[in-house]
């Protein structure tokens, strides 16, 4: 009888332990970062936490938006310097540990503050961050406008053909014989058939957006072409006289 009693006691203690220990441990873990190394250019939950913690300590003065930009970078470096860590602007395990010890992070309140008045986050609750990286020198509206043009011009083409059309727009921007802005190039009269017949105002799909991003990030499948045409439908005789570089899908790209 006694032995059963003590056995039950031990069992109770054991179950209590097994329940409580991982709970506290788990809670502790969910409060702090995941185990990834966070560096400049990163996007996501860990960056939100990093920014919020740095803000809590007074190092970060920008908006908590989930994108690791220059503001976050300098804040992190200042933190590392003050806390005697190697100053590299990268949140590795040591930096994260010190940061987690020194600061508090309440995910719920930070996020409710973040999404307040942000229509994009309301529309798509799965998008956790409220900002995004853009290629240098271009805005998101530029990307949108180009996606429209690429979708209107080349939606039936293979992916690489869509990147190529976007690359031609950029090459024209840099050429001295064309306007020097994205809108100038796209809306130049008679430059693109999709603009002339209104197909540019179709809603672009994700593929054309990806193609535009690749082109803006420096991929040029055309070998520096500034013209292209569809040999089956081209009406201009002059376009055939341009030196041809290569053919991608239905389009021939030329100088």
């Amino acid at each position, binding site marked *: 009888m006694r032995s059963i009693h003590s056995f039950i006691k031990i069992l109770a203690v054991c179950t209590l332990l097994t329940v409580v220990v991982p709970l506290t441990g788990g809670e502790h873990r969910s409060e702090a970062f995941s185990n990834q190394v966070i560096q400049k250019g990163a996007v996501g939950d860990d960056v939100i936490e990093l920014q919020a913690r740095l803000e809590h300590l007074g190092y970060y003065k920008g908006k908590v938006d989930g994108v690791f930009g220059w503001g976050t970078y300098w804040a992190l470096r200042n933190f590392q310097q003050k806390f005697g860590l190697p100053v590299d602007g990268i949140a590795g395990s040591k930096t994260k540990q010190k940061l987690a010890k020194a600061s508090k992070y309440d995910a719920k309140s930070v996020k409710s503050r973040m999404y307040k008045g942000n229509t994009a986050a309301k529309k798509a609750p799965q998008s956790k961050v409220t900002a995004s990286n853009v290629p240098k020198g271009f805005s998101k509206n530029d990307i949108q406008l180009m996606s429209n043009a690429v979708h209107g011009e080349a939606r039936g083409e293979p992916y690489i053909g869509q990147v190529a059309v976007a690359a031609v727009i950029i090459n024209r921007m840099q050429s001295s014989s064309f306007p020097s802005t994205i809108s100038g190039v796209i809306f130049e009269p008679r430059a693109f058939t999709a603009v002339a017949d209104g197909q540019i105002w179709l809603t672009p799909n994700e593929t054309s957006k990806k193609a535009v991003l690749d082109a803006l990030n420096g*991929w*040029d499948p055309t070998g520096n072409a500034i013209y292209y045409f569809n040999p089956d439908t081209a009406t201009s005789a002059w376009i055939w006289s341009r030196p041809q570089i290569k053919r991608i899908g239905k389009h021939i790209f030329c100088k």
Partner: protein
Amino acid sequence: MLRGIIIAVLSIAVVGTGYWGYQEHKEKNAILVNAENTYQRAFHDLTYQMDLLHDKIGTSLAMNSKTSLSPALAEVWRITSEAHNDVGQLPLTLLPFNKTEEFLADIGEFTYRTAVRDLDKNPLSDKEYQNLQSLYKQSADIQKDLRQVQHLVLKNNLRWMDVELALASGKENADNTIIDGFKTVEKTVEGFSENNFGPTEIGMRKKDERFRDLKGPKISQERAVEIAKKYSPYGSKAEIRVTKNGKGSDYGFYSIDVKSPEHKAESTIDITEKGGYPIWFIVSRELGNQKLSLNEAGNRAVAFVKENKFEDFELFESFQFDSVGIFTFVGSKNGVRIYPDTFKVKVALDNGGIIGFSGEDYLKSHHERNNLKPSITVEEAMSKVNPNVKIMDKGLAVILSKLNKEVLCHEFTGTMGKDTYRIFVNAETGEEEQVEKLDNVEPNF
């Protein structure tokens, strides 16, 4: 009775249709006139700017004092850009008018360079003065031709909408005064000798280096396919298509498409004929959710670059776009950053695969660089930087100057308020060569 009603209804219908048709007709005309007016404005503005251009070049020729010459040249530069803007608004894209546009860009480039130069220290050379004189003559020729077109347009009430229609129907060779006029202008410009500015002086026009420094023998098509297989997801069922570059390309390359149904991926890669170097490749497939951190993906990118025997580089920047990491590398020699030697690697964050590479700039500009010793010290260079900028980082770097020449600079990264700047101070002359505001994050709307 019924007949009467039917007649009444029908006549109302006829009158109504007529009225509706008339309204439509009026609206269509209004829109046509509106479009026509936009063209007319751009055209007449263009001829006006060309008049002005000629005059301003003329006055700057007569100027003697340096203090008035600089603003005059800057004015010419501004006018060329206005004229260029006007050309961009006319339906001339399919007309051979690019020589004229290049001519405008050349004047702009030439005057910009001389306008921003310190003419006290470095006055116009005899050659540059001659250039200016020949520009004066040439702009007179263009002005004359354009005025002729303008005169005919005004006299005969010509409409640009007709040009648009002629071009759209592919009948540009039909008799059309405006098109003919612009072709005359183009011929005149073609007549100007090409070597106006001398080869070393033209900067802004993208220099075509044609992969001059590439080593190695020409490779065969079979070899190119072998190289391509190294970079593309490739299976037993893969479909491969190879094409050689067209005649218009400045350099020889093979383009290889690989369609792999097993990997549900399509990839394309361009490989130089000389030496068999990959110029760029893209692997296109559906991407899953992010599993790798940007940092891990960066390590994969570095490993990939090392495997492919790139030398003297450093990982410069990394950015995450959805499930993709883009990594920019720049050259690095004895701690000096070589910005022109840049290449990019794209890594999928779902499985860490390398799904893109772009090395055209690197292949074009990579060569041995000697003499990377600054002649002015960091302290001297730092004293040239705006004192309001708090300098956080410094180093040496080679960049392309505005005139497209490689220059050695002291590089400073600093902050002012909330903004971050990268500042390059020429390590020979101490001039501020370039100031960039760094900002790559934009809020979502």
